[in-house]
């Protein structure tokens, strides 16, 4: 397969991680009423990677989101980067879905689309679970190349271990605590990316105008053959019992305009037995 590569990018709308965030007081789901909603930052790197891969070889880039009606705004924004189209899974019954059920829904939606590669962010800034790619891999029966800081698609399977089917392989540098692992799998596959992988582009005026007319199709649970009772708060596999703000730290000593500040710092450390 040296021809075009069709890529689906998973994007999620999240509250801005730079502003104060909270859980809704009524049902302990992420509060989407207050604060700005943005495209999950890591997903912008996923979009950029999809655009980079398809630039030379061609192929469609489709964005896929599961989220409330207002997530459409973030999808439109994300389309400005250059993807061709988007699919928005939205249904009242999805409110309060846990990660396990989110993966069920996204997997069902992915089965309705045609792709060689799924790319997503390594983690979302609200849930920060970093589990979705592995769950989708398990549900779809395809390999996951997770936590990539570098991705290459290789058409020549020569030298690749265990290539049973005719296809190409994806190879990543998988970021680890101590360095990286070189990891490889055959396509179709799902790849998750860190923000070290590329530099997402800023849309030009032309991109912004072009995005206005790009198609966004919607899917509801009935389209996917999933029962309402199986998802959302009703079908959740875990429940939040309580959410409280972190208690503030005790105010400390502030030294200003003091020529002996460096010395005082060491004296402070000594009183706390830190030196």
């Amino acid at each position, binding site marked *: 397969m040296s021809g075009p590569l069709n890529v689906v990018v998973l994007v999620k709308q999240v509250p801005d*991680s*730079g*502003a*104060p*965030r909270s859980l809704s007081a009524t049902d302990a789901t992420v509060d989407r009423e207050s604060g700005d909603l943005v495209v999950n930052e*890591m997903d912008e790197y996923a979009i950029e990677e999809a655009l980079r891969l398809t630039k030379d070889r061609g192929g469609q880039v489709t964005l896929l989101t599961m989220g409330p009606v207002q997530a459409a705004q973030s999808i439109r924004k994300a389309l400005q980067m250059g993807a061709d189209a988007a699919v928005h899974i939205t249904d009242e019954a999805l409110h309060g879905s*846990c*990660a*396990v059920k989110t*993966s069920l829904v996204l997997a069902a939606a992915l089965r309705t689309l045609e792709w060689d590669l799924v790319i997503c962010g390594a983690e979302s800034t609200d849930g*920060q*679970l*970093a*589990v979705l*790619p*592995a*769950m989708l891999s*398990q549900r779809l*029966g395809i390999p*996951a*190349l*997770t936590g990539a800081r570098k991705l290459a698609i290789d058409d020549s399977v020569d030298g690749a271990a*265990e290539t049973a089917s005719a296809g190409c392989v994806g190879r990543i540098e998988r*970021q*680890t605590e101590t*360095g*990286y*692992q*070189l990891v490889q*799998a055959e396509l179709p*596959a799902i790849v998750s990316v860190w923000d070290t992988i590329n530099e997402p582009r800023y849309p030009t005026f032309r991109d912004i105008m072009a995005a206005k007319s790009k198609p966004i199709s919607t899917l509801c649970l009935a389209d996917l053959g999933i029962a309402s009772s199986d998802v959302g708060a009703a079908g*959740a*596999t*875990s*429940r*939040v019992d*309580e*959410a*409280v*703000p*972190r208690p*503030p*730290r005790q105010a*400390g*000593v*502030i*030294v*200003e305009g*003091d020529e*002996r*500040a*460096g*010395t005082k*710092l*060491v*004296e*402070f450390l*000594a009183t*706390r037995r*830190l030196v």
Partner: protein
Amino acid sequence: MAASSVLVLVEHAAGTLNKATADLLTAARGLGEPIAVLLDTPDADEALIAELGKLGVDAVLRLRHPRVAKYVATPAAKALAHLVAQRQPAAVLVAATADGKEIAGRLAVLTESGLLTDVTDLNSEGAAVQEIFAGSTIVRSHVTVGTPIYAVRTGAISPDAITPQPTTPTVEEFTVDFSTDGVSHTLEDAQILEEVVEPKGSRPDLADAAVVVAGGRGVGSAAGFELLEQFADALGGAVGASRAATDGGLYPHQFQVGQTGKTVSPQLYIACGISGAIQHRAGMQTAHTIVVINSDPNSPIFEIADFGIVGDLHTVIPQALVALRERAGH
């Protein structure tokens, strides 16, 4: 009545246990009787068993298989799923590392169970504490479906009040049917071709250093970070950096602290030229003592400082170094 068992996935590398394993065992003891699940290569010796004995482990389930080191997360998830079906444990605990979370996610799908990630505390009923939104909100949750799976943030669990008695664990070997689809790997497998450890120098590991000296954009240049390294060395600490510093090429990315970097919880964190964005605080606000050096008194980082200096780090740090040397002198 026998207490219910809790499966603990042993964290190990290069023939030794990782610190995380002791934390996982501690967390597991609150829930039931821990059973250590040890996945290793076929040539593995008994050294790890002895180390587990020192941590008070009574029972070890061991799988020795070449797949374990060959593929990312899939062999471990399948092994655990096999044990969950066979033994019906009260819970499964893994470390909340990249690998651990991936294993947990797969296991949740394979066993149709709920999972909670980045757990910082667990009570005897299985209620888990998690810190969300960059640590600004603390939630208590529980799993309502299947066998609860917890990915536990290591370093966060407070150690056992009583040191467990050393034991000689009983070891039971088990095997798993890694079903193949006519190929030597299963469809979900991603193969590890090579493991590359990047040089980190002689300083302690950022993740579990007692002292972290961190620099931000205010450090100004890569050369400025040399001053921070001297400061860290004088305190026996590690060097960390804000994202502005790593993005700007002032310091390597692997040392980034924060939401998209490492989470640290040292005895002492010294933030130099860091403004204190929510995403940075996410990685360091549980430090025991926080010291701030910043020239702008309005920087939000001062809100969490135990000792804050409004001043230029390029003059404050050299003076502190002199003071440290004088102390070392007597």
